[in-house]
C-alpha cells in the first residue's frame, strides 16, 4: 500500500511539474484581476527579476529640478513583527502597487492611456503623500520615476505635475 501511495504522489508531482513548465500568464480583465485572490498561482520568489524602485523629485518655481529621492522608506525590524507588522505589510502593499504600475508600462495598450490608469493615480497619490509628510507646501512641481532597484538604471519617468 505505501508503494501505491508513493507511486500516486510521484505521478501527481510529475503532473504538477509539467503544469508549472508552462509559461506563467498574467490574469487579464479587471474583474479577474480584482478577484485573483480566489485563483492562487502558488508561485513565490520563482526567479530573479528587476525590482522597480519608486523615486521622486521636486522642481522649484524656476524649473530647477532637485535630487531624486527614494519614495518608500524600508520598514524597521522590531520584536513584535511576528504578530503585528503594520508598517512592514504596508510597505509590501506599496511596493506591489509600484510593481503593478511597472507591469502596465510594459503593455503598450495600457501605456497609451497611462495617466488615466488606476495604478498611475495610486502611485501619484503615494508620491504626494510622501511629499506631504516631508512638509512640502503646495508650490512648485514634482515628477516621479521607476528605476531598476539593483542597477539604478531609469526604467520610466513620469510627466511633470503641479503640486
Amino acid at each position: 500500500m505505501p508503494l501505491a501511495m508513493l507511486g500516486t504522489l510521484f505521478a501527481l508531482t510529475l503532473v504538477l511539474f509539467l503544469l508549472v513548465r508552462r509559461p506563467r500568464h498574467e490574469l487579464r480583465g479587471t474583474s479577474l484581476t480584482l478577484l485573483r485572490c480566489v485563483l492562487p498561482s502558488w508561485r513565490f520568489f520563482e526567479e530573479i527579476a528587476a525590482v522597480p524602485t519608486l523615486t521622486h523629485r521636486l522642481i522649484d518655481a524656476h524649473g530647477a529640478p532637485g535630487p531624486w529621492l527614494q519614495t518608500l522608506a524600508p520598514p524597521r525590524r522590531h520584536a513584535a513583527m511576528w504578530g503585528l507588522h503594520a508598517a512592514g505589510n504596508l510597505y509590501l502593499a506599496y511596493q506591489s502597487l509600484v510593481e503593478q504600475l511597472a507591469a502596465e508600462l510594459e503593455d503598450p495598450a495600457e501605456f497609451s492611456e497611462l495617466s488615466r490608469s488606476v495604478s498611475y493615480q495610486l502611485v501619484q497619490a503615494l508620491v504626494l503623500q510622501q511629499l506631504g509628510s516631508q512638509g512640502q507646501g503646495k508650490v512648485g512641481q514634482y515628477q516621479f520615476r521607476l528605476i531598476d532597484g539593483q542597477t539604478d538604471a531609469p526604467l520610466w519617468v513620469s510627466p511633470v505635475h503641479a503640486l
Partner: protein
Amino acid sequence: MAWTGTELLSASERLSALALLLQSLEWLQVRGVFADNGVWRYALLAPEQRVLPVGLSLLCRVSLPYPSFVALLGLRCVAAALVLFLGESRVWPFLCISQILLCVRFRGASNGGSDSMSVVLASALSVPALFGRTPLAIQAALLYIGVQVTLSYAIAGLAKLRQPEWRDGQALRHFVLSSPYGVPDLVRRMLELPALARALGWSVVAFECLFPLAWLDPRVCLAWLSCGVLFHTANVLALGLNRFLWAWIAGYPALLAGSELVRVLSG
C-alpha cells in the same frame, strides 16, 4: 497520536481566526491610507469595481468607502475574536466574504499568497458553518485546506526547480541579501560561500517539492510541518513575511487530518 476531525477543525478555525485578527488589526493601525485623502482612496478604486458581478459590486459600494471600510475591519476583528476565544464558528461566511472584499479593495491582493491562503481557509471553514458540523462537511473542509496547502508548497517548489538560479544557490542569496530589513554580517558572509548557498537553495526546493510526502503518515506529517514552521520563521526574520507564517500554520491541522485519513484508508 490520533486526533478527531472535530478537534483538528477547531484547531484550524482558531489558528485561522488568529491570522485574520492580526491582519485586520494591522490594517486598522494604518487606516489613514483608506481615507478620502489617503493613498488607497476609494474614489480612485471605484470605477474598476463596476465590472464586478452586480451583487459583489453593490457590496463593494456599500462596504469599501472610507468610514464603512474601517467599520468592516472592526467587525472582522470582533468576528475573528469570537472564533479565537469562544469557538464561535458561525461567523466564517462573514469572514470569507469580508476577506474577498478586502482583496478587492487592494485590487486583487495586498500581500500576495497570504491573501489567497486566507481566502482558502475562510471559504473552507464556511462549509461546516453553513451545512452543519457533520463528518462529511468537516472532512471536506479539512481536505480542501490540506490539498491547497500541499499545492502551495509543491507548485512553488517545482517552479523553483525549473530555474537554474535556484539550483546553483544564486536565487536564495539574491532574495535574502535584498531584504528591505538588511542582513546580519554573519548571514551575508555565509551566503557568499557558493557551496553553502547552493545547499540552502536546494534545501528550500527539496522541502517544497517533497511536501506531498506529509500525507503518507501522521508522524511524517509532523516532521514536515516542523520544517514548515522553521521555514516560515526564517521568512519572518529575513523578509518580514509574518502573514505567511500565521496563514500557513493555520492550515497545518488540515494536513494532519489528511495524513490520518490516509493512514486509516491504508489500514
